[in-house]
């Protein structure tokens, strides 16, 4: 862990080991910063965990990944505003990413030359981005409303979900005496 300037700190932990046929590993980290300029704070949180089982014929694993991040960006400033470089020209400007993934794998040796292997996963990512901008068409003589706003914001949002696209069953033909790995 560390901490210091601009309210920026980080915490990180990890651990792992094994007991008999079972092995495990987990890690998590958190980074947070208020930013060195205004409207410039960012947060990152990530976790990962995995457990596994091993026997002479079989290997099973299950892992989880998660992230919950919000990153704010610093914009350019016109020359006239550089007297205080911590100012923002417009704000907010940020991107958020929320991610979750689960992955299970299995591998089993059927015989000396044949292996059955599969992979099952689910992943989901939600992204949101906002870029604030001034509106060149704004008329200061008119009242501010939905049709006459001083700002125009570019918003991008995406959702993506992945499901398994294949469940391979791997057979190893007799390859001239090569063993199946």
């Amino acid at each position, binding site marked *: 862990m560390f901490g210091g*300037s601009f309210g920026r700190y980080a915490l990180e932990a990890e651990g792992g080991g094994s007991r008999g046929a079972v092995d495990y590993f987990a890690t998590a980290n958190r980074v947070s910063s208020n930013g060195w300029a205004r409207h410039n704070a960012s947060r990152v949180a990530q976790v990962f965990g995995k457990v596994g089982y091993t026997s002479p014929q079989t290997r099973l694993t299950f892992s989880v990944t998660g992230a919950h991040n919000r990153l704010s960006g610093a914009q350019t400033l016109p020359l006239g505003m550089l007297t205080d470089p911590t100012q923002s020209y417009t704000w907010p400007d940020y991107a958020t990413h929320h991610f979750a993934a689960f992955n299970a794998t299995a591998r089993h040796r059927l015989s000396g030359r044949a292996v059955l292997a599969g992979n099952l996963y689910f992943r989901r990512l939600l992204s949101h981005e906002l870029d604030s901008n001034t509106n060149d068409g*704004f008329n200061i003589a008119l009242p501010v409303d939905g049709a006459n706003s*001083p700002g125009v914001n570019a918003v991008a949002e995406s959702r993506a979900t992945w499901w398994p696209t294949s469940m391979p069953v791997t057979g190893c033909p007799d390859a001239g005496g090569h063993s199946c790995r």
Partner: protein
Amino acid sequence: MSNLFDVSYYNLGVLGKNDFAAGTGFDPTTGRPTQFRSVGAPMGVWVGVRYSSQLL
């Protein structure tokens, strides 16, 4: 000698129109063409510790 530790720098520059240039708040009709610069992050100080052990 100036800026010995490179603490004052810009990492991006673009040309744009400053809609606050007239000093009377936001008004796109009085905006002035100008350079826009992205200011590099200032120096900071961070202190950290790391601990590890054999738990099991």
